[in-house]
């Protein structure tokens, strides 16, 4: 088996040190946390960084704080497994639990961080899709300070985020959950262990039977995860009945821009996206009535 190319290995002790080194190394440095994405890419020579910065030794970045009433935050080193096992996330932010839980590998969930998954920038990220429906924000730190960015503005293309060399995502912030909010996460995979070929997350606030605020996020059917805003507009102010669900599903399908690859054809993805939106809306309706 091919060994890894040599690199300098550094363990910054603080966020300040990490971003200062990242800024010095510019495009020659790569952050390492769980390693589940970066290690295979190093092995395959897809990236050849001169410096690897392991941020796992930075204290205070592995936490889940808060709840649906107040909003919730988790850190750059919070693993996917911690998210999956969090009773608060399972209860108050169920679609994030569902996205984390469907990942098959315990090893990957125990090693991999949620923020690491987001920063890979794959449009097939189940977790990014759910976090987009939840209207999450990311805290981005660099040597000049920090800023908070909606996850909707984070992705610019396949494998591309707005992060500049020297930027580090340190925290994910979830807004508080309005009473009456329900949702559903749905996806299609070729085999249990494969990545999603279509994924959908729906998160809707329903008051007196009327959709007050609907968010529909789709993954793996466009260059980035995205919100189906035309479909959302068809839901807002309406009762979630079968006619509305059908119209919104068709609208969401039309908003996709899928590609053909080894997992599915573009035509299949477009059609399946509508079906998954319909399933997710029906599941949401069922949960709202429960």
């Amino acid at each position, binding site marked *: *088996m*091919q*060994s*890894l*190319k*040599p*690199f*300098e*290995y550094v363990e910054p002790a603080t966020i300040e040190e990490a971003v200062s080194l990242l800024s010095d190394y510019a495009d020659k440095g790569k952050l*390492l946390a769980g*390693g*589940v994405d970066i*290690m*295979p890419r190093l*092995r*395959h020579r897809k990236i050849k960084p001169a410096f*690897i910065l*392991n941020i*796992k030794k930075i204290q205070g970045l592995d936490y889940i704080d808060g709840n649906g009433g107040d909003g919730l935050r988790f850190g750059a080193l919070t693993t996917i497994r911690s998210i999956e096992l969090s009773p608060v996330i399972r209860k108050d932010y169920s679609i994030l639990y569902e996205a984390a839980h469907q990942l*098959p*590998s*315990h*090893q*990957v969930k*125990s*090693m991999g961080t949620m923020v690491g998954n987001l920063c890979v920038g794959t449009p097939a990220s189940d977790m990014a899709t759910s976090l987009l429906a939840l209207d999450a924000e990311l805290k981005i730190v660099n040597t000049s300070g920090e800023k908070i960015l909606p996850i909707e503005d984070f992705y610019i293309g396949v494998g591309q985020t707005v992060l500049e060399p020297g930027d580090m995502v340190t925290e994910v912030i979830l807004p508080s959950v309005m009473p009456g909010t329900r949702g559903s996460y749905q996806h299609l995979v070729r085999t*249990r*262990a494969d990545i999603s070929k279509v994924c959908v997350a729906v998160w809707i606030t329903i008051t007196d039977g009327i959709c007050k605020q609907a968010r529909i996020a789709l993954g793996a059917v466009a260059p980035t995860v995205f919100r189906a805003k035309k479909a959302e507009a068809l839901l807002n102010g309406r009762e979630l009945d079968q006619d509305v669900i059908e119209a919104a599903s068709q609208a969401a399908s039309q908003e996709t821009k899928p590609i053909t690859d080894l997992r599915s054809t573009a035509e299949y993805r477009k059609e399946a996206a509508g079906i998954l939106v319909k399933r997710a809306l029906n599941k949401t309706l069922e949960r709202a009535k429960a």
Partner: protein
Amino acid sequence: MKKEIAKFTINDRPYELLVESNVTLAELLREQLDLTGTKCACGVGECGSCTVLIDGKPTLSCSTLAIAVREKDILTIESLATREGLHPIQQAFIDHGAIQCGFCTPGMIMMTKALLDENPDPTEQEVKEGIGGNLCRCTGYVKIVDGILAAAESMGKEGGR
């Protein structure tokens, strides 16, 4: 590239080793320490055959830099059998024919240990989900699941191990 002397606890024994930064934990175990029980199949974290436990958590040693886990407590398949005999998981795998070619077995057994340490009495579904990151190319999953359920039962009877 600098080499560093790093301390590890592997299978309850302390080690001080000269480690290069680009060496993975799987390479350290197999090539520097001759602990060849840990297998490397895909090398990119897809198959689970290189699973070891680090501070009790199931970890892919092919996708872990050795230098990044210094000072940690590492358990490999070699830690399970004692002078008194095989570990109940190993025995259950043998008794239920949960081994065909054997290549996935060390990873499968270490994942089973992590699973049963966390959940000593899993349902069949929980077992199947628990080994979701471990591939068996012989496709002997039915017997592996039987073996894991039997191991849980025998460990429950003797009060865990």
